[in-house]
């Protein structure tokens, strides 16, 4: 079966890149990016192979590949690319493109292609959640507890509904990717053993949580001599701080939801409060480092930033900051200002969840799925992996 070349795919993907700066057309297929990548394995697929797929319009193959998600954007490829074609940014743009293609609502495509689209989707969600919350708002005095200002049950009701919708949407997106992957493997005639799937899931989730792969990017194996950064500045630690902080806050919120009666007052040392606070601060630390790097733009992957690179951390930071302010206002009532902060926090938190399957944030899901698929694809061959590749 011959493939018929189609140039339009690359144009579409480039729209997801950092402005007009993505120069991936310059790629002359030398393979430097793949060979320099600390994470490239076996097929040597990425990034060169993925760029080639994009150049030729092999969309099916591109979307069926889990490889785009295995990249942690360390920027080594971009730094050393002989044509300065910016493979790392290409990978990021392709991830964004894939999110848009996996999402059936079309909102992802809108949000990811342009600044305006991104803001529009954000505004849309904010208005919807704002109106929904406002609709149940009781007229209360500025001194009233927060959960009298907006009833706790109403927040929970919207929250649960939101989680269900987002869950379905995310599941559909992940299924879209999963199905393409399975079909792709079948086309290639690669056998997949169902029995190996649970093991693959387990290893992928641990990988993701422990940042095992991400650590390889920071191993100093790549560019010598490694100007070894202190551990607290390494990219994977920063990423783990954001991720871990966020998950901790999510855990604290969930535990609150499950075990604490709504609106019941608790002391500041209440374990879930402390958990939330620690999570929030950790997350903020990570975000601060990320912002600093993007502002300094000293080296890839920070040199070029798409709007979405700013948007998602900003949304997260805003959510955390309003959350912390809300905490403060619980113990030191700020009156209607406190109510305003609380309202904003809830809206932002809901935006965050709602935009999960649509934005960069979706990589939490897709990357974990990709790691699973990768582990699954490799499960039968595990015994042979140890052969030294040296010739």
């Amino acid at each position: 079966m011959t493939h018929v070349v189609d140039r339009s795919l690359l144009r579409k993907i480039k729209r997801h890149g950092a402005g007009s700066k993505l120069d991936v057309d310059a790629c002359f297929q030398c393979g430097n990016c793949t060979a320099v990548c600390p994470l490239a394995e076996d097929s040597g697929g990425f990034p060169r192979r993925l760029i080639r797929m994009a150049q030729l319009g092999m969309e099916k193959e591109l979307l069926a590949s889990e490889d785009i998600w295995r990249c942690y954007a360390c920027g080594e490829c971009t730094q050393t690319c002989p044509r300065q074609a910016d493979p790392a940014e290409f990978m990021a743009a392709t991830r964004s493109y894939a999110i848009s293609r996996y999402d059936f609502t079309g909102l992802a495509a809108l949000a990811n292609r342009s600044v305006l689209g991104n803001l529009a989707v954000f505004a849309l969600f904010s208005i919807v959640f704002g109106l929904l919350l406002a609709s149940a708002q009781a007229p209360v005095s500025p001194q009233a507890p927060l959960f009298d200002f907006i009833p706790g049950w109403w927040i929970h009701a919207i929250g649960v509904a939101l989680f269900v919708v987002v869950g379905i949407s995310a599941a559909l997106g992940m299924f879209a990717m999963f199905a393409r992957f399975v079909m792709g493997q079948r086309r290639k005639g690669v056998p997949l053993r169902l029995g190996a799937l649970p093991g693959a899931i387990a290893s992928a989730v641990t990988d993701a949580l422990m940042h095992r792969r991400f650590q390889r990017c920071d191993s100093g194996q790549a560019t010598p001599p490694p100007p070894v950064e202190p551990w607290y500045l390494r990219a994977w630690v920063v990423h783990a701080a954001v991720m871990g902080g966020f998950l901790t806050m999510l855990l604290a919120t969930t535990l609150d939801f499950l075990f604490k009666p709504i609106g019941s007052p608790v002391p500041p040392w209440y374990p879930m409060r402390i958990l939330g606070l620690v999570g929030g601060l950790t997350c903020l630390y990570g975000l601060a480092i990320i912002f600093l790097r993007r502002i300094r733009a000293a080296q890839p992957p920070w040199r070029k930033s798409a709007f979405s690179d700013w948007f998602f951390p900003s949304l997260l930071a805003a959510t955390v900051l309003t959350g912390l302010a809300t905490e403060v206002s619980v113990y030191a009532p700020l009156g209607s200002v406190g109510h305003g902060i609380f309202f904003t926090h809830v809206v932002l938190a809901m935006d965050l969840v709602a935009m999960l399957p649509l934005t960069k944030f979706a990589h939490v899901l897709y990357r974990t799925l990709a790691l699973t698929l990768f582990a699954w694809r490799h499960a039968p061959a595990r015994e042979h992996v140890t052969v030294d590749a040296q010739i």
Partner: protein
Amino acid sequence: MSEHNQQVQPQKNKPMQNERAADAPLRIGVYICRCGGNISDVVDVDRVAETVKLLPDVVTAKVHTFACSDPGQQTITNDILEQNLDRVVVASCTPFLHEQTFRGAVSRGGLNPYLYEHVNIREQASWAHKHDPEGATIKAIRMIAAAVGKLHHVEPLEQIKLPNHRRALVVGGGIAGMKAASELAGRGIKVLLVESSQRLGGQLNDRGRVYPTERDAKELVEELARRVRTHSNIEILMQSNVTAVSGFIGNFKVAIRTEAAGIPVTETTVGAIIMATGFRPYVPQDGEFLYRTEPGVVTMPEFLQLLRSTPDAARKLTWNGRVIRNIAFLHCVGSRQLDGVHEPPPNGRLNTYCSRTCCTTILQQALEVRHRFPSVGVFDFYRDIRTYGRGEENYYSAASRAGVTFFRYNGEEPPRVELTPRARAKEGVLSVTLNDTLTWGTELSVPVDMVVLGTGMMPGEIADLIEQMKLATGEDGFLQEVHPKLRPVEVSVNGILLAGTAQGPMNIQETLAAAGAAAVKAAAMFAREDVELNPYVAEVDLSRCCGEALCVTQCDYEGALQMVSMEVEGATVERAQVNAGLCVGCGACVAVCPNRAIDVNGWRLDQFEAMVDGIAAAIPGQECTPELVNIH
């Protein structure tokens, strides 16, 4: 450095060879070159030196790492002066490379340069018998013994001096010819420029812009044409062909026929001939990539013509009434051909060489298409992108960035050009299919409306001139230089020089440089009043010649040997006479003369006999002589 200059002067006060007492033994020096290791890795040069030292009259035998280097030459010069040597043997590489070098060293020692013998123990011993060191060593000894034998029979010779016509013939009015002509004219040398067509500028007239300057080829042609047309030292003959060439360096007789009616054949004399006959573009065979079968398949010259004839304001590129939406460019059409992969042309000779200019030309056109017609898709099928020259890699990166899609094929599996199946014909009537190595060997098919064949260069059609002038061509069919580095623009016939693509594929700057290089050799030659030639020509012994003229009938070189009338003892008789300028010293005459009345100076029969004796003699210092023929 002043000391070098002093060494140039021969020591006049040294007794010359002919002043030697007749019965005094000769004093022969033998110098054996290691040639880095080219010789000494196989031949035991130290043993050779020790052995040949025992040969009659050899007073010194030395080994040197690079005899041709300055210290090596200095050793020889010094030994001649200090040890009163009167004969010298150098055993090294081919005389082709360094015979002249050592003649110079011998001259600087004050010795007649023809009292010197060159023995080739590299090509003929160490290289030929790489796996038989013993045999090679013995052979080297025997060859040196032959030279030593010969040296007992040589006399000093003087170079032949012939008058030098300070006028050059430039054959071909392309940019190479025009450049060479204008340089020489500017130097004050008369030039006759002969062009077979009606216009100056040759192939370049058919080009658009030239890379990497992106200036119009017309500008270049017009500037050079203006120079040659306006220079008083240049005479131009258009629509003219050289029909006959005879003579020799400094004194070539050429006949030129002009196409126009009524003009008689011109005969003229020139001192040097510059061959600037150029190339011709490769024309694919019928059906090669569907050429001449499908109108959408065109060669690069045809495509250049299309681009040039399409107005700048045109929004669309059309060909044969069809709008072109996608174009494929194929590299290496008619170049880098492989045995067993490509169909040989009727002459049976595959073009195995790289045509050097096609890659950048293709990329330049691809870029122009993308710039002028942004909606046209451009697809490039290559083996290796060879944008080697200054500024050329920019075309490659600019073409990539302009959205040209590249495909890479293995030489063994060229892409196929096919008619598109009816179902997909709306995307393009043609398709190019290949196993793309950039896409992990996947078979890809690209529908296009036009396929441009990146055709390369072929040798010009100058078989008659090659025959006339006894020029050599290489395996590639282009004119062959003597040596790519030592004598890059000279051919084996003295006085004939190569300029530009007659010698092989070149781009414009390289062509202009080659033309300049050819011109400078001519200019140097014309800086002398006389032309000096090697004295290896036949000489008639009138006391033995009986006028049978067998030699004349045997001679292959017109005019070299003629019968002339002369007075001998009162009677007018016909005797053979040699024209030293035309005689090449081949010896065909020597073989047929029944009276041994003709012989070649420097290679006389008695000298050959002495060489044979030298080879056959017992190896000195060796009790049991190894077999004479120890050669595989």
